[in-house]
């Protein structure tokens, strides 16, 4: 593997790992804030116990999401310096906004929440968790705006003098049509994860305490988790459906890869969706085993008779479009924006824009895209089924006692987390070989001065350290889960705190 391949592997490993914790952070901070609000409103002891219990699980998870997130911000410059030069004028701003508007908010108010017991008045304390949650959602908005630019660059103009894409319309960058469907999809997925974590942990504790006094409390938490997951999953489906349609429009190759649809259906026939198919490993052909007639046409276009292009057709048309340089991009010419064919854009440094866009192939890894797309949906639908099943068996005051539910307890939090990973792997693999679709090839983006040996070293150490931290994290999470919620303690009013007595919380 050369430096480019290792840098790609490292980005994939660190990003997928980071995003195991992100949806839990977003989703669980919302649920904990809601529990805290329920406590402040009702003063029912159960709510405070659940707030503190899920708050601890939240902080165990947040720590890893935070530390692995720092790596992400630095990695663009460290491993992808050509990319950073090429798009920094546009891509840097959402990252700076994310730090200024979101990271400060979530970090500062989470610190206040964790250490605030007995120090901040009750209502204000509840609000610190809501502000933490708002911080996580804002953070998602800005980083997804940056990612959407890579999927579908808008609001920019290419400047041949500086040899880079430059900001033309920041509002267009923030309201990219890909962003407007991706943000709801990611946020609802995160709530699905948050609900599922509460539901999975709740099922375990409900079984453990089925004859005890706490059974009712855990049953209630479990049902809330299931409802959150179920409602969110409806949002995931609706937003995912819009996303599929937008993606077909802006990156037809990605959606063709999602289906391993090699040949464009003849005029007047529709495209089938294959639930299962076997393709050759090099991704040159596929044999469909379970087809659903016309479903792909519907998913991609909203009509059962809609036209969908196949990979072979797209291969030819994209090659013609990009490698000959007939594709047009907005270019700054004498202070004006002129749509110009890529082949006609000459840079001041002697290169042409075609040097950045001409690649041997415009086809992503099709088997990977195909399976990730299916795993994502499969894991999502299975989670929904568990949530529906749980709500059904616990209806009208019933509880569960069958030990088989333990499997559901284990799978429920994991499935939607992995569905998030599968979705992202699909999205990012499907965009290849582009780092910025239609404008910059991934192969041109890597840092020219960082040796393969350096990246090998960092990739191996990241992987080892991340693996160790994952083991520590999961063990701690399970220890706290087994322990369950602490007994109720009357909270201390900040006004009654004496200088010399122990703090409610200390490191």
């Amino acid at each position, binding site marked *: 593997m050369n430096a480019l391949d290792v840098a790609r592997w490292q980005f994939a490993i660190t990003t997928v790992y980071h995003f195991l914790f992100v949806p839990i952070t977003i989703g669980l901070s919302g649920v904990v804030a809601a529990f805290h609000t329920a406590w402040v409103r009702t003063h029912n002891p159960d709510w405070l116990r659940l707030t503190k219990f899920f708050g601890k699980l939240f902080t165990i998870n947040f720590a890893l999401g935070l530390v692995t997130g720092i790596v992400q911000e630095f990695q663009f410059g460290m491993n992808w310096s050509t990319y950073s030069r090429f*798009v920094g004028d546009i891509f*840097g701003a959402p990252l700076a*906004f994310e730090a*200024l508007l979101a990271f400060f908010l979530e970090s500062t108010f989470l610190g206040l929440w964790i250490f605030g017991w007995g120090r901040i008045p009750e209502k204000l304390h509840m609000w610190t968790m809501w502000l933490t949650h708002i911080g996580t959602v804002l953070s998602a908005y800005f980083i997804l705006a940056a990612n959407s630019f890579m999927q579908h660059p808008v609001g920019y103009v290419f400047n041949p003098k500086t040899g880079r894409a430059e900001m033309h319309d920041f509002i267009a960058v923030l309201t990219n049509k890909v962003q407007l469907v991706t943000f709801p999809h990611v946020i609802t997925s995160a709530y699905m994860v948050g609900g599922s974590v509460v539901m999975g942990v709740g099922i375990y504790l409900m079984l453990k305490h089925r004859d005890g006094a706490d059974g009712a409390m855990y049953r209630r938490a479990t049902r809330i988790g299931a409802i959150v997951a179920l409602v969110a999953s409806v949002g995931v489906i609706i937003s995912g459906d819009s996303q599929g349609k937008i993606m077909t429009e802006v990156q037809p190759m990605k959606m063709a890869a999602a289906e391993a649809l090699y040949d464009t259906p003849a005029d007047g026939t529709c495209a089938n969706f294959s639930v299962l198919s076997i393709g050759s490993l090099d991704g040159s052909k596929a044999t469909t085993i379970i087809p659903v007639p016309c479903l792909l046409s519907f998913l991609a276009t909203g009509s059962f008779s809609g036209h969908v292009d196949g990979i072979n057709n797209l291969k030819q048309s994209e090659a013609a479009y990009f490698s000959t340089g007939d594709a047009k991009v907005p270019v700054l010419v004498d202070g004006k924006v002129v749509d110009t064919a890529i082949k006609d854009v000459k840079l001041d*440094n002697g290169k042409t824009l075609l040097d950045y866009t001409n690649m041997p192939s415009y086809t992503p890894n099709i088997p990977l895209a195909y399976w990730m797309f299916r795993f994502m949906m499969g894991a999502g639908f299975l989670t929904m089924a568990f949530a529906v099943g749980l709500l059904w068996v616990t209806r009208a005051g019933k509880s569960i006692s069958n030990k088989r539910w333990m499997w559901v307890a284990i799978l429920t939090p994991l499935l939607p987390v992995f569905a998030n990973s599968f979705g992202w792997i699909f999205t990012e693999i499907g965009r290849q070989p582009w780092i910025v679709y239609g404008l910059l090839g991934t192969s041109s983006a890597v840092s020219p*001065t960082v040796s393969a040996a350096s990246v090998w070293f*960092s990739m191996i150490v990241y992987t080892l350290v991340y693996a160790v931290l994952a083991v520590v994290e999961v063990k701690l999470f399970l220890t706290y889960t087994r322990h369950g919620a602490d007994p109720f303690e009357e909270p201390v009013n900040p006004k009654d705190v004496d200088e010399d*007595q*122990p703090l409610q919380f*200390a490191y």
Partner: protein
Amino acid sequence: MNYQLIWFALIGVLWTAYLVLEGFDFGVGSLLSVLGKGKDAADTEKRRRVMLTTIGPHWDGNEVWLLTAGGATFAAFPVWYATMFSGFYLALFLILMALIVRNMGFEYRHKRDDDTWRRNWDIAIIIGSILPPLLLGVALTNLVRGLPLDAQAEYAGNFFTLLNPMSLLGGLVVLGLSLVHGTHFLAMKTSGEIREQSRALGTRVGLVTTVLAVVLLLWVGLAVGKVSVWVGIVVAAVSLLFGIFMNTKGKEGLAFIGTSVTMAAAVATYFFALYPNVINGKDGKNALSIEAASSTEMTLKIMTGAALVFTPIVLIYTAWSYWVFRKRISTKNIPAAVSVH
């Protein structure tokens, strides 16, 4: 208005905020085993918990200043960000590793009542607090001293190019300043023995740091030879001595302000020495200028607008968070360890 210059200055402000704030939590973390040593095992554990609790609510927010400095450099000076981050690859990688294990230590150490568990995280916190200021000092000093850059402003050296005497001294000075700053913070935020011992240690470390800092700053001053740089150097040296003196007089707040000003003056000195570049060239060749590194005016204007509106809000709630946790802490305030099996 020259937005490039404004952002050059603002990046300096962000680094100042980062070093003033995270500087003290680096110091506290680094000294965990030194000032956390009590008369017996139970006392040692309580003292360490006092130290960690003083920075507990704040370290995470403090670290965001680094992320903001990074993000703002990316947005305002993409070429600077690209050259510096890829050029300092291994140094930054080590900083990231150090921050990862340290932050995990802060969050996980108290979550199990187990001596081995705590001892391991203590090691992570101590190493993770010493390495970043040391390496950041090395990296920033290299920017001023001059990096070998090619005509495309790509870094043309390797990891060992960075390990020159001036930059290594720069690393020691930033670490030393963080240690002194950390003792001033602890003296201000604790009571009892830790407070007394922090003050005593602060004076000793402070004098060593002053010697190192004066040598470094004279070295930089003579190499650059600008009036603005000499002003920065004088302010840095005077404020550091003022901080140390106030510490010996028991004026802990003023001591902390003194070392905060030193951090700001040190950053200002470096930025004056860089101007009109963002990275000085080796032997005066191929420097990367503010102008060549910068984003378009449109991006800089958008960023300026965001900074004007949101920085005051951030400062207000950050200040509120410090106000909420303003009380001094002593070993009497430490509750029993959390016991979860």
